[in-house]
């Protein structure tokens, strides 16, 4: 291999992974994967849930040691025993779920371990000035206050902190693991600007995502993994969605999402909605009125921080209600805890699967049956046979990739964990189901399956409230779309009139609308 000369610089890969294999007990996560990424290019890494993408990135970042194979960085073989070593070599991975220190500020989180000091005293002014310039330079100034505590950050903000942290020292290769799964559209635009700038500076970029449009916007080349194997790569110019999907799933996927128009339920006067919110006030949301009828899917759109998740948490009794009320089938509820809401028939799949939904050290079976244990029990004894059948059915229906239903959920890939969260509520079948970002991190095939399940649940008479930042999903699923901004509902669009532009216009605050258009 040539190492010198300008010509060689252009063609020799910045980073080469050679026949990397990695197995976990019972799962071959990677088998002999070889991959190149060049300086100044964006390589997209695609594959179904559990294909091995995150595992590959963890090998690059020194989090995992490969069982065999090696890494070559700028022509020299390297191996990393710890993430710190990979950092020093200029390799950075932005994790799917970044770890942030909860009790210190954004600024301190970014420069953790490298705080500017005068003697032993941290120079706070220099630190904040530095972080402010960084925020300005990378386009996060609007979204992130350097003084906010780590614990108070939204998933998107945590992502930004992680990115800032990565860029605090020189990078040669930077990998993003599903960075946009918790970002709103204008934040995605800011992130893409940043990625392009890094690319132009000669950084090699690996980009993992399940969102096709993003791949075609940002990537120069796409590599596809399936079942831990490398299946091929394509230049973005010569490929299309169909071909990539075929490579990922190994067969044709006839349609991404079938939109089954539901017979619009008649809003007659005597018709009692299954879920009704009246002038609901909490600390974060104000004057919320909304009704969801049986068989209806109501979508809630809006930007990050618009109060959508806070609304959902209030409706299930997880956040205190100041005034106004929640009613189910015409009956007003007194909500003191989610147990009260569930008793009245409201189920809720929250946004942050690891923090709010999953028992990571328990099995898939335990996690799926959590909300139906009482129903599964006779004289308090859980009927395990039935429990296993239910778990197996959902593993099959949602194609959860696992060696067994007894696998610990913490060992599943991100998308498969998300499917377990959904399975819990699909098993419960409440009267009203609130889904907060239901397909975060889920691959195209499973997404289609989830959409058809949601459709079917509605057809069977369930009332569904779906919060989603993915506009195609929001528009495709909902019979009506409500848009929130700063804790208030700013508009309602029926299925016929809802467009991406329409939702965005209602979601943007007036003084933000100009930045929104330029994004």
């Amino acid at each position, binding site marked *: 291999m040539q190492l010198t000369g300008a010509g060689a610089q252009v063609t020799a890969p910045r980073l080469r992974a050679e026949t990397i294999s990695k197995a976990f007990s019972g799962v071959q996560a990677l088998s002999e994967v070889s991959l190149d990424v060049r300086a100044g290019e964006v390589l997209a890494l695609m594959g179904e849930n559990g294909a091995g993408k995150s595992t590959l990135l963890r090998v690059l970042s020194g989090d995992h040691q490969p069982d065999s194979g090696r890494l070559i960085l700028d022509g020299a073989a390297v191996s990393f025993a710890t993430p710190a070593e990979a950092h020093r070599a200029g390799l950075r991975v932005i994790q799917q779920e970044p770890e942030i220190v909860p009790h210190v500020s954004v600024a301190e989180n970014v420069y953790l371990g490298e705080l500017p000091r005068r003697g032993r005293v941290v120079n706070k002014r220099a630190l904040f000035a530095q972080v402010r310039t960084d925020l300005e330079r990378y386009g996060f100034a609007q979204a992130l206050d350097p003084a906010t505590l780590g614990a108070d950050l939204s998933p998107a903000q945590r992502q930004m902190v992680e990115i800032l942290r990565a860029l605090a020292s020189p990078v040669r290769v930077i990998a993003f693991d599903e960075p946009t799964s918790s970002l709103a559209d204008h934040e995605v635009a800011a992130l893409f600007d940043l990625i392009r700038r890094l690319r132009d500076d000669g950084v090699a970029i690996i980009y993992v995502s399940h969102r096709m449009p993003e791949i075609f916007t940002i990537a120069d080349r796409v590599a596809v993994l399936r079942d831990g194997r490398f299946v091929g790569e394509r230049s973005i110019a010569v490929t299309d969605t169909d071909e990539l999907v075929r490579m990922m799933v190994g067969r044709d996927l006839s349609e991404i999402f*079938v939109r089954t128009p539901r017979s619009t339920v008649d809003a007659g006067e005597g018709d009692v909605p299954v879920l009704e919110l009246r002038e609901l006030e909490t600390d974060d949301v104000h004057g919320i009125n909304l009704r969801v009828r049986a068989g209806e899917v109501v979508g809630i759109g809006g930007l990050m921080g618009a109060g959508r998740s806070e609304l959902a948490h209030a409706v299930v009794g997880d956040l205190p209600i100041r005034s106004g009320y929640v009613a189910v089938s015409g009956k007003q509820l007194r909500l003191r805890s989610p147990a009260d809401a569930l008793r009245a028939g409201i189920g809720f799949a929250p946004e942050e699967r690891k923090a709010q939904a999953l028992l990571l*050290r*328990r099995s898939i079976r335990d996690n799926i049956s959590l909300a139906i244990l009482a129903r599964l029990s006779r004289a308090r004894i859980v009927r395990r046979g039935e429990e296993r059948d239910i778990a197996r059915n959902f593993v099959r229906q949602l194609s959860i990739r696992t060696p067994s239903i007894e696998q610990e959920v913490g060992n599943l890939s991100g998308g498969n964990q998300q499917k377990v969260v959904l399975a819990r509520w699909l098993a419960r079948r409440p009267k009203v189901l609130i889904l907060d970002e239901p397909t975060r991190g889920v691959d195209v095939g499973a997404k289609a399956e989830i959409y058809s399940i949601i459709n079917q649940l509605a057809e069977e008479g369930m009332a569904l409230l779906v919060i989603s930042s993915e506009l195609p999903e929001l528009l495709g699923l909902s019979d009506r779309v409500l848009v929130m901004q700063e804790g208030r509902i700013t508009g309602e669009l029926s299925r016929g009139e809802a467009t991406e532009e329409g939702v965005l216009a209602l979601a943007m605050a007036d003084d933000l609308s100009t930045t929104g258009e330029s994004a």
Partner: protein
Amino acid sequence: MIQTDSRELATAETATKPYAGNPIRRVLDAIGVQNISLIIALVLLCAIIGSQNSNFFLISNVKTIGTTVAIVGILAVVQTVVMLLGGLDISVGSAAGLTSVISAMVFMSAKSAALGIAVALVVGVAVGLLNGIVIVYGRVNAVIATLATYAGLRGLANLISNGRAQGYTGTDSTFTFLARGSLGGIPILVWVLIIIALAVHLMLRYTDIGRNIFAIGGNPTAARLAGINLNRYVVGCYVLVGLVAAVAGVLLTARTGSGQPTSGSQGLELQSITAAALGGVALQGGKGGISGTVLAVILLGVLQNGLTILGVNSFWQDIAQGALLIVAVVIQQRRRGVRAYGLPR
């Protein structure tokens, strides 16, 4: 949707086949690594002690071990339950002391063992209720709350007894039956341990209550959003601990023949926590079981007995127990794959 057929079959197949592996592996998996290492440690320990002093294997000595571990055993069992829930109860020893005194005092004044025992159990439940309510409604950390009752209950026990042993139960048939009776060759004390351990084991393993306890310990936010009433579970578990601590208090009275405010109950909190941790209960909750705890109780009992019959200074026994606790938790953290940075949790 029709297009998922081929994959459905594939995943269904892998999903229904739990372990592709040999049967020995499956049996070992069912017992669990933690329990296997405890059993190995126990066998080694018995072999070492037995080779030094053959009296160790006498039936009478085995019975002695059984009766000495019974009281700490039942406390370790319920300590396991609170630890699974993500809590801790430091007040168990003090609660046992208080109920020991009360059972003896009521027995003396009412001349009824049944009444003495009943009042002790009621007091135990009240103590558990107090702990639970302070933790849940006062929003106080479990360690701090039970540290307070640890001191408070001990003070109360000394106050009502003037710091002295109370009454004499050595002639009462009920108390002597509890202390020295046996059924089918097995001492009553051991029966009490067996029954409580088995009942709690079955509850944890087979009922929805047990599942919910694991869920709360594993991720309280998730448990709450899944509709589990956390407050009820926390209070319920502390009440269970209080009740069992009262049983321990009654057994203590029976064994010593009088109500003891501190002697015999002091240190039970530490021993019960040690046993649970050694048995593999994660200190952060959500992981562990009764079988490990019971094995650990036996291991600690054998260790203590062995050191005694080998004539080792009893202070060394405390040191050995402390060392064992550290070793157990270090091994546990290693196995959990806890990363070598950050403060331990």
